[in-house]
Every structure is written in structure tokens, then in C-alpha cells.
């Protein structure tokens, strides 16, 4: 590849932006007694370093689970342990049992930020670069532009480097991306291994497991379940089981251990949603207090059913016709699906950016916007505005998104053709989407301005954050419909193209 240097430049820009964002404050800085997610991460280092493995997930006099107890899968804990060894080498005070609670200093902040950067550099960034290089049918320039936009995606940068979430999202996302990469390049075993690691790093990745499962199953069916497909299926199953066993080995010694870890990972008693989150439940809550009306387990079942139902059509299709593009689309749709789900935490991947640049950019902008209340709380207004603008500019210049709003570019051709059979006057679709985009951007900008400048009325202190959730949720609903349409009508257009060629 002749333009390798441009790829290096893109990676360097991504790294520079990440590091400059990390100079800002983090969640819970100087806010005793609980501090924030930053302290959680530090606390886990303290716990994993000082206590034996058996006590990590159990409440004890040394390990108060109420104070940022470990509630992520074992791989996260191992990672914390690794960081703790480095911390021990630099300054043992940082991870001293009990006494280090709420430890804050410039040097320590620097250390924590560096651990994020290194994890990112080792796992997420190579995955993104390799993914972009493996994209088929596009020019080198587009590949590089794609990498730039993915690396500049502000949501991930702000959460990992600004807010400092209590988990390294880039690691879990990076593993998941390696999984996607492996599966789409036909290295199925490697892909499933990477994906298992992702699940073992962050249980949230389980949401992605359904498309993975369906896709791989579909592949096996395609090869014929009696011959090669069966061999593949067995191999895959072995890989998955082996990687899980490996990760959970210290916890399999006793039954109680395993159960306790699982209980910590899936805290079903936490309720439908925690904070102001841009998902359906939270927005709905404004009109009807579901949380108070329904008992916990019904909430759980309800949200699970909704999620499953909204995913089902795409998954069935994926099983029957496994194609790597459909696979990526399903993954993306998943993110909009998550708004039906339980707690917040959703981090979209820009997997289809090069295929439907307009809609993807829009979607990613909305997703960043929905994080606004969280970021404001951490005094990250400046970096979030700047990175969002940078991302927007990068997308606009590298994909010229405004020129790609025709029906074909939005992949809505076959859909509008089939609608026109019943409604002949249905020709305004692409124009309508453009206006919708404009309206949505203007609302987001206005709402941001209002949140920053105006004080909310005393009766409704959460007015603006609820509004932000509501607006983002409306947008996400729209995307949900859109992506469903695309997936459903996808194969038809594919067949049409084949006929033409």
C-alpha cells in the first residue's frame, strides 16, 4: 500500500486527540465519599492486587462491595491486576489496601490515563486499522478516510479518556471488532475466540452475541450440516468453551464462586434504568412511571422480550442468508435496539460508515449527543463540543455526505420502489430525510446551548437532561425503523443488481 503514511498520520491524529482529551477532568474528581468511575477502576486494582482471587467477588471486611465492588467478568479483573503490578512498581501508595481510598494526584491521573492509552493502542486501534484495510471494493483513500472517522468517533474518546468509565470500553470493543474482522475474513475460530474474550471483558457484549451466533450458524448450514459444516460447528463450539473455561478457571473451583460472579455480573435487581438514559423506558417514564407500577421481574421479562422480538427478524434472515454485509448491518441495528434494553451503556461502532455515510454520521452524532448530561456533569463540555465538531468535519470532508442523500445512496431504492406500487406519489423520501437531518441537528445544537446557558426551572431540575434523552430516543426510534427497512429490503436490491450485471 503506497499510502501507508497517511494511515500512520490518521492513527497519530487519533492518538493525539485521545491524549489531549485525557488532560481534562474525570468523573468524580474531588467528590468524596464515593468519587466516580475513576476511583472504581483504581479500587479494583487495589482489590485484585491485595486479595486472593477467591475473595474478589465476595463481600468481606477487606472488600466492601457497596463501595465500587467488582461487577465485570474475570478478564477485566485480570487487566486490573496487571495494571496494579505496574502501579506497585511506580508508587505502592496508589494501591495500598484501605488507605488508598479516594487517592488522587496528578501523577496518578497520568498513570491511569496512560493505561487507557496503552490498552487502546494494543487492542482497539490495530483492530480498526486492520478492519479498514480489509474493507472490500473501496479505494485506499476511502479506507483511510474511514479509519479517520472511526478513530475520531467522539463518544468512545470522551467516555474512555474524559469521563474515564470504570471499564476500558476500547478493550471490549476492540476484541469485538477483532471478532467481526475474523468472522468476515473467514477466520472463524480466531473471530469467535476474540469475541469470547470481549464477552469475558464486558458482559455487555452479550448483546452482540446473537448476531454472531446466527451468522456462524448460518455459515455452518451453508456448508452443509452433515459434512464440513458440522466439523466447523464442533470446532467453533470447542473454541468457545475452551476460551470461557480458560478465563473462568480460578472461579470454577467451587460452585458458590461461579454463582457469586454471575450474580455480580447480572444485577437484575438494579431496575429498568439507572440515570437519565436515552432509551425507550426512560423517555416513557415521563408519561407513565413504569418503574413504580410494575414489579422488578416483570420489567426484566418485558424488556428482554421486546429486545428479542425487535432483533428476531434480522437474526432469522442472517441465519438463512449469511453475508458479511448483512452481519455488519445487524450489529449496527443492535445498537439502536439496545434502547429497548435494560441499563444504559451503549457504544455504537461505525462499521457501516463507508456504505451509508449519511445515516451513519447522523446516528453517531445523535449517540454522542445523548451522552451530553453525563459529560456536563464531568465538566467535559469543551472537549465534547470540539471532538464532535472535528468528527463531523472529518465525515463531511471525507465522505461528502451531503451529496450522498439519493435513494440509492441511502440504500432505500428497493424500499421506495415497493412502496410506490401502492402509493405512486411517494417520491419525496430522500428530501424528507434531508430535512429530518437538519431538524435533528438544529434541535441538538439548540438543546446543547440551552443546557449550557440556562438554569432549569426549580420545579424541574432535570428538565434539560430529560429533554436530551427524549430527543435522542426519538432519533433512535427512527434509526431502528430505518435499519430494519434496510436489512429487510437488502437482499432484493442485491438480487436486482445481480440480474443487471
Amino acid at each position, binding site marked *: 500500500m503506497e499510502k501507508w503514511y*497517511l494511515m500512520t*498520520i490518521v492513527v497519530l491524529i487519533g492518538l493525539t486527540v485521545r491524549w489531549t482529551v485525557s488532560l481534562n477532568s474525570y468523573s468524580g474528581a474531588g467528590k468524596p465519599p464515593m468519587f466516580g468511575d475513576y476511583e472504581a477502576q483504581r479500587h479494583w486494582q487495589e482489590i485484585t492486587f491485595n486479595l486472593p482471587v477467591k475473595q474478589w467477588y465476595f463481600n468481606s471486611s477487606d472488600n466492601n462491595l457497596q463501595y465500587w465492588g467488582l461487577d465485570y467478568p474475570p478478564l477485566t479483573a485480570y487487566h486490573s491486576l496487571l495494571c496494579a503490578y505496574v502501579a506497585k512498581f511506580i508508587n505502592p501508595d496508589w494501591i495500598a489496601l484501605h488507605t488508598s481510598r479516594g487517592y488522587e494526584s496528578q501523577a496518578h491521573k497520568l498513570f491511569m490515563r496512560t493505561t487507557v492509552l496503552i490498552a487502546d493502542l494494543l487492542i482497539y486501534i490495530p483492530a480498526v486499522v486492520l478492519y479498514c484495510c480489509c474493507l472490500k471494493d473501496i479505494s485506499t483513500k476511502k479506507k483511510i478516510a474511514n479509519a479517520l472517522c472511526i478513530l475520531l468517533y467522539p463518544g468512545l474518546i470522551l467516555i474512555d479518556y474524559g469521563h474515564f468509565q470504570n471499564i476500558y470500553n476500547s478493550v471490549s470493543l476492540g476484541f469485538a471488532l477483532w471478532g467481526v474482522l475474523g468472522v468476515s475474513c473467514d477466520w472463524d475460530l480466531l473471530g469467535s475466540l476474540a469475541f469470547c474474550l470481549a464477552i469475558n471483558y464486558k458482559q455487555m457484549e452479550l448483546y452482540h452475541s446473537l448476531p454472531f451466533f446466527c451468522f456462524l450458524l448460518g455459515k455452518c448450514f451453508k456448508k452443509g450440516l452433515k459434512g464440513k459444516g458440522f466439523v466447523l460447528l464442533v470446532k467453533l463450539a470447542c473454541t468457545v468453551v475452551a476460551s470461557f473455561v480458560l478465563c473462568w478457571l480460578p472461579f470454577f473451583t467451587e460452585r458458590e464462586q461461579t454463582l457469586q460472579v454471575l450474580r455480580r455480573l447480572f444485577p437484575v435487581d438494579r431496575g429498568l434504568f439507572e440515570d437519565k438514559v436515552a432509551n425507550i423506558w426512560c423517555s416513557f417514564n415521563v408519561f407513565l412511571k413504569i418503574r413504580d407500577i410494575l414489579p422488578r421481574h416483570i420489567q426484566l421479562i418485558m424488556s428482554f422480550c421486546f429486545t428479542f422480538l425487535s432483533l428476531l427478524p434480522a437474526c432469522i434472515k442472517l441465519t438463512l442468508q449469511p453475508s458479511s454485509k448483512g452481519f455488519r448491518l445487524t450489529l449496527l441495528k443492535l445498537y439502536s435496539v439496545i434502547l429497548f434494553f435494560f441499563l444504559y451503556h451503549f457504544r455504537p461502532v461505525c462499521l457501516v460508515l463507508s456504505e451509508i455515510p449519511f445515516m451513519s454520521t447522523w446516528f453517531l452524532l445523535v449517540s454522542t449527543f445523548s451522552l451530553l448530561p453525563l459529560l456536563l456533569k464531568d465538566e467535559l463540555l469543551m472537549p465534547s463540543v470540539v471532538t464532535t465538531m472535528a468528527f463531523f468535519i472529518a465525515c*463531511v*470532508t471525507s465522505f461528502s455526505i451531503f451529496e450522498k442523500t439519493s435513494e440509492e445512496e441511502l440504500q432505500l431504492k428497493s424500499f421506495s420502489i415497493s412502496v410506490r406500487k401502492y402509493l405512486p406519489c411517494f417520491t419525496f423520501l430522500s428530501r424528507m430525510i434531508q430535512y429530518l437531518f437538519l431538524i435533528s441537528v438544529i434541535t441538538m445544537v439548540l438543546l446543547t446551548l440551552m443546557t449550557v446557558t440556562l438554569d432549569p426551572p426549580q420545579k424541574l431540575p432535570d428538565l434539560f437532561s430529560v429533554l436530551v434523552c427524549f430527543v435522542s430516543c426519538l432519533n433512535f426510534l427512527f434509526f431502528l425503523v430505518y435499519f430494519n427497512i434496510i436489512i429487510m429490503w437488502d437482499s432484493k436490491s442485491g438480487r436486482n443488481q445481480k440480474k443487471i450485471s
Partner: protein
Amino acid sequence: MAAFTIAAGTGNWFSALALGVTLLKCLLIPTYHSTDFEVHRNWLAITHSLPISQWYYEATSEWTLDYPPFFAWFEYILSHVAKYFDQEMLNVRNLNYSSSRTLLFQRFSVIFMDVLFVYAVHECCKCIDGKKVGKELTEKPKFILSVLLLWNFGLLIVDHIHFQYNGFLFGLMLLSIARLFQRQGLPILSRLVLNSRGQAILPPRLTKVLGLQKRHMEGAFFFAVLLHFKHIYLYVAPAYGVYLLRSYCFTANKPDGSIRWNSFSFVRVISLGLVVFLVSALSLGPFLALNQLPQVFSRLFPFKRGLCHAYWAPNFWALYNALDKVLSVIGLKLKFLDPNNIPKASMTSGLVQQFQHTVLPSVTPLTTLICTLIAILPSIFCLWFKPQGPRGFLRCLTLCALSSFMFGWHVHEKAILLAILPMSLLSVQKAGDASIFLILTTTGHYSLFPLLFTAPELPIKILLMLLFTIYSISSLKTLFRKEKPLFNWMETFYLLGLGPLEVFCEFVFPFTSWKVKYPFLPLLLTSVYCAVGITYAWFKLYVSVLIDPPVGKTKKQ
């Protein structure tokens, strides 16, 4: 929607580059800032709260006003915006005051003033020869030049981390250079008059006719204004003076390129003089009326400082000092020198301004002045006897800046930017210049590293440096891929040596026992290593200027 599309500038790479770097500057706001931040805050306070008569006398803070009057007026205007941010920063006695609002205001004022720089870069790009346009956008000289200027590593860290207002000053300089290149109405002069090797291809008479229309007056005006903003630009004033005299006041050349004495135009000399005089009158007039000119000048030119800054700028004197040090160590070992006679001042320790030489003779301000003049002279002669159009002027300007950097008194390492930025314009036009440019920028930028010594900025400076260096080397290599390689093995080896040097200075040295014994060692190494590269680039550029045939003698191609 259509209007929005245009506003967003689909495919407009220049605005994307400019906006991108502006956003990066905004991200740099929370980074470390040096004492220059307090310097400028103090100046804001002085100009805001004191009458003009006291501007150059006020000495509450140690950071007295030592820039020319236009800069003081600039601070005065800024202070009237500043009062809406934080009134407290405008108090002269409020030393070392830095609230978050003050920080925001000061940082944003630098970012905002860079609009002028962006405009100047835009104008400069118009002067670039557009003939060798590749199909790819990233291979166009214009694109490369605008990245080299807009994303310049030195400017980014000096202005937006270290804190200074160089951006808009360099903007003024580039603007005046661009005006010397441009004709009224038609911007792309060089494409018509110069061929791809930067030599004039039109007959001299036609060049004369075109030259008539160049916007020399505007260029002279901008430069005069610039001089009254910051007097460091005096270093390049000889190039401006000689070029304007030779190419503007004499309207014609003989066919062999030498001067035609009877073509002297008095009108032009007088109009040029008038422009310079009026600008100076506007700036210095009030102080002349107050009878304060001597005081102003004593503030502007303090010769009480030492030969070298606390951290040696990588120039000739750094090599000289190092040689002295080496000789004294050898002398002590071989018992030639008496240890009791050696002055105890530890060099580059930060506080000591005066460096006493032990073996070699000490250097006085007068010596440096003479050295500088001698170094500048040949390039000026070249400009006079072998005029090569605006490009020749640009090379002479770079040489002036470099020579004074090499031999000047109390030179700051930041002054290297004065050579790097004009040199960028040359680098995209000719392979030879590109190779000199790359050596100069890489070593020059690396020599800025000690400016940022705090841990959080370490990744930033390394990342940005890598970003700029990799980009400049790769893009210029792509641009000139048909010509011979840009570096020979020696230059490649030297440039690659910067990597291990950085690793040693920042990552290995702090963990060794030398840290206590020789705390100045990393600075010394950096300074001497970079001095070698910069001297080499200076020498190479000089040779290429002297060897290049004059315009008239080149065969028309």
C-alpha cells in the same frame, strides 16, 4: 439545505484543514503554559490600567513590556475584551494571576488571532506553481504546503502550549511575502513567469511589465507593520530592503541579468519610504512626542542578557560553548589547566545567564553582531547581483533568518520558526530545497522539545512531532519521487539518530545516576546535536544559493 451544503464546504479541503487544526488548538487549552502566559497577562494589565506615558516605565512585574508599540496597542485592544471575561486579570499588582476564565480568554485570543495566519496561508497557496498537479489531492503542492504551514509543529507548541502570539505575526509576514509574489488581479504570477524549476522563462521585458503590477507596496506595508509588532523580524529586514530596492525601485535589468542603472525610479523609492515612514510615525510618534524614545529602545534591545539563553539555542555558539567545555575537560585531564582558575558557574543550569568560557575567548555582543553581518552579507550580495525573482528573495530571507539564528546574541530556540516557515514555501517547489527544509525542520522542531518538560505534555509533543515529521517527509518524497532521493545515507543516519537521543534524554537518563551529577546533560546533548543539523542545513542552503546561476544566464528551456 443547499445553503447549508455550501456552508459546510463539501470537499473544500482547505477549510477542513484550517478548522481541524483550530479544533486541535481548542483541545490544547488545558495544557501546560509557560511564564509567557503571565508576561502577556501583565502586558494586558499595563496597557489597560496605565496611561501611555507609563507603558514602557512600569516595572512592578519582572516581565516588563519589551515589544514595540503596535504590540502594546494590540494588548490594549485585547484588554477591552478581556474585561468581560475577568476584571481581575487587568490589575497590574495581581502577579501570577490565572483563573480559569483568564486562561480561556488568553488561549482563545491566540486561537482567534490565528485567523490572520490562516488567511495568509491561503494567499500563499495561491502563489504556488500549480502545473505539477498530481491527480490525487494529497499530492498537490498546494495541499502539502497548507498542511506544512497550518499544522506546523513549532507554531502549535510555541503558541498553543507554551503560549505566545506568533501565529498572527507570522501571518503578517507570510501575507507580505505573498503580496510580493502576487500581481494585482491575477494571483498566479509564478505559473506565468517561473518554470517548474523556479526560474524565469519569460523575456526580461515581459517580466518587467508583469513586475510593474506586483503588489510590492502592500508587501512593504505589511512588513513595516510587522516590524512594529515584534522587532525580532529586523533579522530579515535586510532581505526585504535589498529586494525592494533591486526589484521594485529599478524597473529593468540588462539582458544578462545585471542592473540597469538608468532605470531607477524615484517615485517608487519615495512611495516606499513614505509607507515605512508613516507606519513608523504611527507607532513611535506618540513616544517621540513624550520624549521617551530612548527608554523604549532600551526596553526593546536589552544587551544585558547572556550570550546564550538558559537552554542553548542550537546555533553556532552552542557548538562553541560545547567545544570550550570539551577543551577544558581535556585540559584538566592533561593538567594543562589549573583547576583553581576555572570559573565555577555550571552551564545551562537554568539560572545562570552568563556563561564564562575557560579556554576559548569570550564572546561580546559586538562580536556576534559582526559575525551575523558577515554571515548575512553574501546572501544579500546574491540578491543584488543575481536576482531570481520572488523565489530568490525567499531564499535570501530564509538565509538571513538562519544566519542571525546561527550567530545572534541571546537567541531563543523559538527563533528557528522564522526560518522554517518561509522555507516551507520553497520546499514544495524544488527537490533540493525540500531536502534542506526537511533537515532544518526536523532538527529545528526537535530542538523545541525542552520547551515542554512536564510529563502530561510529553506524549503530546512526541505525537505531534511524529505527525508533522512523518507527514512532511513522506509527502515531499511522494511529490519529488521522480527525482533523486531527498537524503543521502549520512543525512538519513543523522535524522534517525534523533529517535535514540529522545529515548535517552526523556526515558533513560532520569533513571541513571547521572541525573544528580550532570542535570544539564540532556539539554546539552539536544542542543549540540541539533546545532550540528541546523549548521549543516544552513551551510547547504548557502551553497545552493551561491552556486545557482543567475536568471539571465540560464538557457531558456
